[in-house]
């Protein structure tokens, strides 16, 4: 394997953006038929490097050689022609087009300009069977969940007959069982001699699948290791990446009290067509308790959160501090101590084209220090923003820059800081550390733990099962809008939890839902 010829050779790649050097003198050899993993903290330059290889960006310096031939890519179509395919970190799909259209776009089988659907369908059905990538070809993408979307992305690449596959964080949104399916497909591909470049922040996955691992730090390659021959652990990798140890989300000791903060009874959310998305769910959270909800994305987590925030219509009773608040508006809920870290910060958490200090007011605009309920108090708000920037280590030159100028991790820190500063009694935290690097991750975990100690009730939703198990006092498993199992975070393993999420079977750490 190690002796296989080099399929991709990146030599002396430099790429500079205004104010940052994304890649500085990167050298990388990827052997044919191998899985080559690339790891590095957020912003290390991984995606940039892959975009360069895929012709989306031009390197400032350096050369690319494919199968020994030096190439210059002007656009992705050049790269596609050279047999390269890329699955992007963020889905590159058009919601209002069908699955089939999304896949064949740009390489449609045509007869005098007219798309030959049948040809495409035949070929795709065969590909889908071969690699176990099952998707409904005639559905609109908007109707599908993340797992199916990821399969579409891979089919897109395979359909073009790529021999070199770039996968940029393909597992970030997948649950363990889906990850397994993906890996088995990757093994098949590898067996056919296809070369795979694989990026992930989940180091155990990397160790499980990679033939070679390159570590990128601050834009340069710092090491390339062979996990098959060299003994490396996740901790070793993390240390190479950031120069520090891997943080853990472990919480010590229970702070759960008897005081029920939030009591949800028979919560249901229906689609416009009357289909239940959340189906008669009940639970309680006490002061000082973190309740984790595990579940494959799209099983009703987002709807529970939105319903509790009063953003969408729901039925059922919501008791907060002993009073029925089912009729409260979102605003009233926020004023009375609901904190909210949304799953999609771009969509629900930020005003991208507004300065940081105005973003700091968002969700708390009726409260001190942002306003007196009617008039804004910008001076106080600015001071408080400066404090948050400082306390939460948000890296920015000033509080006047637009939120869009911050990196994802720093945006998230701002949101966490903002929500914690309003002294919430009940916090809804959805994927609080998604896409955030290890340093910022541990800081956010620290803040959650501290708040919990001081009596905060937290509803935690996370696809990161380590995080969920580590932080939660109680875990409930959500499937098709219903709680199907309870898990004891002290004993349950991520594998068990992941299995329970797909509704397959029960094991030690898992009990039937109470």
């Amino acid at each position, binding site marked *: 394997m190690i002796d296989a010829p080099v399929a991709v050779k990146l030599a002396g790649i430099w790429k500079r953006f205004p104010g940052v050097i994304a890649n500085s003198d990167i050298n990388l050899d990827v052997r044919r038929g191998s899985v080559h993993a690339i790891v590095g903290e957020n912003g290390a330059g991984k995606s940039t490097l892959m975009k360069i290889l*895929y012709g*989306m*960006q031009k390197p400032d310096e350096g050369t690319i050689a494919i199968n020994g031939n030096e190439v210059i890519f002007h*656009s*992705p*179509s050049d790269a*596609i022609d050279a047999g390269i395919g*890329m699955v*992007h*970190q*963020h889905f*590159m*799909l*058009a*919601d*209002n*087009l069908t699955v089939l*259209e*999304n896949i*064949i*776009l*740009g*390489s*449609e089988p*045509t007869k005098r*300009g*007219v*798309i030959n659907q049948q040809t495409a369908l035949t070929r795709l059905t065969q590909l889908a069977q071969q690699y176990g990538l099952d998707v409904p070809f005639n559905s609109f993408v908007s109707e599908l969940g993340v797992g199916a979307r990821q399969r579409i992305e891979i089919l*897109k690449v395979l359909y073009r007959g790529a021999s070199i596959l770039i996968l940029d964080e393909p597992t970030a949104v997948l649950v363990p069982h889906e990850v397994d399916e993906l890996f088995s497909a990757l093994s098949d591909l590898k067996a056919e001699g296809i070369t795979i470049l694989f990026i992930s922040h989940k180091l155990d996955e990397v160790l499980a699948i990679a033939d070679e691992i390159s570590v990128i730090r601050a834009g340069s390659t710092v090491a390339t290791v062979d996990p098959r021959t060299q003994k490396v652990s996740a901790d070793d990798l993390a240390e190479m990446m950031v120069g520090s140890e891997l943080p853990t989300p472990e919480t010590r000791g229970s702070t759960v009290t008897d005081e029920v903060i939030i009591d949800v009874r028979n919560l249901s959310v229906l689609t416009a067509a009357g289909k239940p998305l959340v189906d008669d769910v009940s639970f309680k959270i006490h002061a000082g308790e973190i309740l984790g909800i595990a579940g494959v994305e799209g099983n009703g987590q987002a709807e529970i959160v939105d319903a509790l925030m009063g953003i969408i219509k729901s039925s059922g009773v919501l008791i907060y501090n002993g009073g029925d608040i089912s009729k409260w508006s979102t605003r009233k809920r926020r004023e009375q101590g609901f904190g909210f870290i949304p799953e999609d910060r771009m969509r629900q958490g930020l005003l991208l084209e507004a300065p940081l200090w105005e973003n700091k007011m968002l969700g708390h605009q009726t409260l001190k220090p942002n306003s007196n309920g009617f008039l804004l108090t910008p001076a106080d708000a600015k001071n408080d923003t400066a404090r948050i920037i400082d306390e939460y280590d948000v890296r920015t030159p000033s509080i006047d820059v637009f939120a869009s100028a911050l990196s994802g991790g720093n945006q998230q820190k701002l949101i966490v800081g903002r929500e914690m500063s309003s002294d919430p009694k009940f916090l809804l935290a959805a994927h609080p550390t998604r896409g955030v690097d290890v340093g910022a991750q541990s800081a956010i975990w620290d803040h959650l733990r501290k708040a919990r100690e001081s009596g905060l009730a937290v509803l935690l939703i996370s696809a990161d099962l380590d995080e969920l198990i580590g932080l939660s006092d109680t875990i409930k498993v959500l499937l098709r809008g219903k709680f199907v199992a309870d898990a004891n975070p002290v004993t349950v393993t991520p594998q068990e939890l992941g299995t329970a999420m797909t509704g397959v079977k029960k094991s030690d750490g898992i009990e039937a839902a109470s």
Partner: protein
Amino acid sequence: MNTKSPSIRIFAFFISAMTLLSISRIFADTNDLTSRGTMAAAFGLAVPIGLAGLGGLWSERAGIVNIGLEGMMILGTFGAGWAGWQWGPWAGVLGAVTFGMLGALLFAIVTVSFGVDQIIAGTAINILGLGLAQFLAKLAFSNAPGGGQSQSPPVKGLLPSVTIDFIADPLNTLQQKGWFVISDLAGMFSGLFYHLSYLTILTVILFVLTGWTLWRTSFGLRLRSAGESPSAAETLGVNVIRYKYIAVIISGSLAGLAGAYLAIVGTNVYRGGQTAGRGYIGLATMIFGNWRPMGTGIGATVFGYIDTLQLRDNANIRGLVLFGALVLIALAFLGLRSGVRATSLAFLIIGSALVGGFLASTNMAPEVAQVAPYVTTLLVLATASQRLRPPATAGMAYRKGESH
């Protein structure tokens, strides 16, 4: 009901509507409601609106909101008047398309290449189109015999129009019998074959061609992908910028063609102010039609139909009121059966009120007729449930290589 196939349901729906229309015609005593002349004229008034709507559709499908249709249409009327006066009607059509395209090209440069706000750019194009057309008209027509500062001399000759007599005439005879439903159907279909301008035929072809191109060809898929997810398209090697340019330019040529219809078929001169806001109404029919050619065409035809009704005969509007009432009452009964109480009751009340209005009025103020097309549009939109699916990135600027 639900088990029937869609085509049977559409047919049943159509026949029910025709039945109600026929009842209205008889009670309102206005045969013109479904006459061949009405239908032919309705198509005539619908064509410029429909073409503008189709233009909007092309551009929005590629992600560019085109408020500037009105301005491109104005440029089209000038191009038609000027070239038509010099070299005849077909040259006029070409002139209109060219002028519309030039407006669109400018629009594309600022929206696609510079990525400025599309609403602003469209508004600017409307101002610019108006100014340019009037400026050029003053220079070109002021001293021309038969022309004036804001009117061109007549277009040289007429565009031919066709009537397929052996279909149109028997149908028309049938219509004049006044038979229940049958005559109505005959009249409306007869209108399809009567006094059709070549431009009308071209318009129908363009609608069909648009649907076919956008949804059946690879060109169309790529163009739509530029409006649905340009970043995805770009990663698959689609030249998004090029497709956006093409879409906007086609959009402008269709708007120009709409102008040509007004200046060559609707009448035979360019006149300042001739577009009368039809670019905006076209945009409305496109939204009404859910960004699809069929829906846009229906929207434009309904609008043209009602405008024709009121223009041809005030009595028609009484028929229309009765028709609206009957439709609402029918919807109310259907709704009650499937348990949609509140809305059905509202429909029932409004419907009954309309019947009352119909019975009480023998003579309506002309204003009622004049605003009928606009009121009807609002009523249709308010009663129809709106499940619109605009292209996902319509209105957003797209910059190459900046997708995350």
